[in-house]
């Protein structure tokens, strides 16, 4: 019985105190006919040594090609200090900070996190995390419906330049709320939402979603889109990449009034790729609609002696108080990930994060430049991009990716399943982790595969 401390003497004394003869007696309220048989489908227990062998073998079965895929998950360098501190037992093994006085470490850190996220996005306030970028967008849609009291239509404009998986998740989560998700098509030259393509006199719209950069890596015309939405009574929901925020205009400054709700995937801020999770979603908003925000929010207050301290606040929005009327059913969020992200942002600072963003941009540009010199390889869209770009290939993408994979290269994301009109295209990304030799290695491999 690993992890159970009881000696035989303990068990005996404890049973006596309970007034029973055996542990089995303690289960006597369970109807006997329901009692389960042995769990034969589960293997016998193993010690840490044996499990360690198995897991090392499994980890080795995962290939680790040189990765040029982004598409929502980005390989960034994570300073060693981030996880050495994050996994300290006091952070790792604590619960949600319900007892504030015994959780000032986590609480102060989350207050710092909220500040940093608000700073990155230039928004007024932030919450303490949601599950991931996709669910954060779904929650943003629900929040927009609550917050935009003037709009009755529950109608959301969702561009096709939003991450396809995010669109799936939004659809799955808001399905039962009588919300209409209206897809906006992108400009085939720019790969972005052309403001001119938007209806000039639209019916009631609740909110417009603006991704920045968008799924193709292209930069949307955020000022024009924001002003258009506000002019038509719609709220603006920004979905942004946090690394890009170091160099790209933040949603709080889009257009005349700025975005109303902002969310995104926090993974680029110090979270390992790890086959997709755990990551974390972040969410910000204008202070005036903060009572519509889902999730935990930390606030500063004072103690009995007037000393500053931090607590979970605005709990009246939450399921444990408001129950069926809560802003969301979320309870457990992604606490530990936000701890890592806070330490990451601190270690990078504004200058460091900007340098990372610039290097990502420069690397991707350099890569795309080299690749597009190969016969038949072309850059698809002409909008400015941050750190991803769509390439057209002279051969089916799946074939090309398989060929690259044999050469130890994960060449990017095949768009054809999500955008049937974009067959033979590939979304590539080169973060700051890629050296000039890496870019050459990709270029050489692609030339070989195509040649």
């Amino acid at each position, binding site marked *: *019985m690993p992890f159970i401390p009881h000696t035989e003497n303990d*068990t005996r004394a404890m049973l006596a105190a309970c007034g029973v003869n055996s542990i089995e007696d303690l289960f006597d309220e369970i109807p006997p006919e329901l009692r389960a048989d042995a769990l034969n489908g589960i293997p016998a227990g193993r010690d840490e040594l044996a499990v360690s062998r198995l897991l090392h073998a499994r980890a080795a*079965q995962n290939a680790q090609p040189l990765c040029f895929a982004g598409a929502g998950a980005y390989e960034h360098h994570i300073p060693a200090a981030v996880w050495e501190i994050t996994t300290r037992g006091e952070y790792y093994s604590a619960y949600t900070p319900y007892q*504030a006085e015994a959780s000032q470490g986590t609480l102060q850190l989350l207050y710092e996190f909220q500040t940093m996220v608000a700073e990155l996005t230039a928004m007024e306030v932030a919450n303490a995390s949601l599950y*991931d970028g996709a669910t954060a967008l779904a929650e943003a849609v629900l929040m927009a419906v609550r917050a935009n009291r003037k709009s009755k239509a529950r109608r959301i404009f969702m561009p096709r330049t939003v991450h396809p998986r995010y669109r799936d998740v939004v659809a799955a989560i808001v399905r039962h709320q009588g919300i209409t998700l209206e897809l906006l098509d992108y400009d085939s030259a720019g790969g972005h939402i052309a403001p001119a393509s938007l209806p000039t006199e639209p019916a009631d719209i609740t909110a417009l979603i603006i991704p920045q950069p968008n799924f193709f890596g292209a930069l949307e015309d955020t000022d024009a889109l924001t002003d258009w939405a506000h002019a038509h009574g719609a709220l603006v929901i920004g979905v942004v990449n946090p690394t890009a925020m170091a160099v790209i205009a933040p949603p709080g400054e889009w257009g005349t009034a700025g975005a109303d709700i902002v969310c995104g995937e926090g993974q680029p801020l110090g979270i390992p790729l790890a086959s997709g999770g755990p990551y974390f979603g972040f969410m910000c908003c204008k202070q005036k609609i903060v009572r519509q925000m889902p999730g935990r929010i930390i606030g500063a207050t004072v103690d009995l002696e007037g000393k500053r301290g931090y607590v979970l606040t605005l709990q009246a929005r939450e399921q444990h108080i408001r129950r069926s009327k809560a802003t969301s059913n979320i309870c457990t969020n992604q606490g530990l990930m936000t701890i890592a992200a806070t330490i990451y942002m601190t270690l990078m600072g504004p200058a460091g994060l900007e340098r990372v963003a610039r290097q990502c941009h420069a690397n991707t540009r350099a890569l795309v430049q080299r690749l597009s010199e190969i016969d038949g390889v072309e850059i698809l869209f002409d909008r400015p991009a941050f750190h991803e770009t769509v390439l057209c290939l002279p051969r089916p993408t799946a074939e090309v990716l398989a060929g690259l994979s044999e050469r130890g290269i994960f060449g990017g994301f095949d768009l054809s399943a999500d955008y049937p009109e974009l067959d033979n295209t590939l979304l590539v990304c080169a973060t700051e982790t890629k050296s000039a030799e890496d870019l050459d290695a990709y270029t050489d491999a692609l030339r070989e595969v195509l040649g």
Partner: protein
Amino acid sequence: MSNEPLIFEHSRPGRVNRAQSAHLGGELNGIPESLRRKHPPRLPEVSELDAVRHYTRLSQKNFSIDTHFYPLGSCTMKYNPRACNTLASLPGFLGQHPLSAARDSQGILACLWDLQEMLKEVTGMCAVSLTPMAGAQGEFAGVAMIRAYHDARGDAARTEILVPDAAHGTNPATATMCGYTVREIPTDDQGDVDVAALKAVVGPHTAGIMLTNPSTLGVFERRIHEIAGIVHEAGGLLYYDGANLNAILGKVKPGDMGFDVIHINLHKTFSTPHGGGGPGSGPVGVSERLHPFMPIPVVGRDDNNAFRWLDEHDLPQSIGRLSAHMGNTGILLRAYIYALMLGREGMVRIADYATLNANYLMACLRDAGFDMALPERRATHEFILTLKRQAKEPGVTAMDFAKRLLDYGFHAPTTYFPLIIPECLLIEPTETESKETLDAFVEAMVTIQAEAEKDVETLKGAPYSLPVRRLDDVKAARELDLRWQAEA
């Protein structure tokens, strides 16, 4: 312990941690000025030492399993084996991109497949999807499947979900998110669902019922079979909130109790870390009839027995995706490692000793003069102590006891939940705590009771020995201060 300023207060303009970025940079060629950021974000400007020292010092202000007994009812704060973290952090796992081809991902897929199989076995369900990212998302998946099931049958009349009044807040909140009206079922004085009341409300408008068993009152719902019959007969489905699975692992399977769908809080029963509020993981298990509706992706096998992701092509009736990828993979991995170490015998032992610890602690506290909310019932893995009597005389509340416990080096139990028990402490010791720790907790409770009898102010002023004294929640909510602001 000395005060630790905000990291922003450590910040100095122009201070740079050059080890992380000195050699990076590049031009923003191609990006027009209009799209660029004008003012840098005011992230802290500190040295690496400042950062390490600040966050190390902050960490010491937390109570945690690794430092304190933490009997927080409903939360299953058990030991989080370090091996789970170490092994889940192997570079081969951490470095993998979520969109990697299946051929490059057989290692992680094999782990997830195995975990799916294990969870099927312990829950008695016929299939499992690992994707929900916490209990509440598992609940969402479950209720959404119930809805998809009724919808697929063209049964549009079912607009209500039944929820016991003792239920966790996520249950009614989830039902609402799935577009249902919530109907509360009262609890009888023995802590069981009031079956008469249930019968009175169940009907053709009933989509289903959400239950935990053992319930949040810390007792086993004895008439579960009867309840299942009533709901099923009315055409409703049964949802099992698996947050309390620790109590019954290997003892009784939700599938055998008649449940159609279940979520499991891996961050409780399978001991993945709570991380100061997450990440969790809430896989769902389903019966045959809900199988087509499972959230994707799910791990399957192809003809060559290689693992692959099943998606909308394999499960066209799926309720869809609940995360951009496959949920909290790293947490799933930790749960898998834990399950491997426990094995089939270890799992049953968890229920044995979690139950023994709870019943022992309850017996000791009762012998010490405290009142139990349900004195005639067995404790399961947790139980409820009520301080209703003490709240009258001498006039100390559950909150006062909770805060004073902190001074004695114990995290407080859950307070004021479930809502239907006045002045309650929901106490869950878990199986990983020793008899000595439980005895010390009883001793502290007895001491606090004596303090209360002597002078209530002692408790009202608590805690005294923590980084802060009792904090003003009301002020926090009234005078919102949600972030640091740079001075003008």
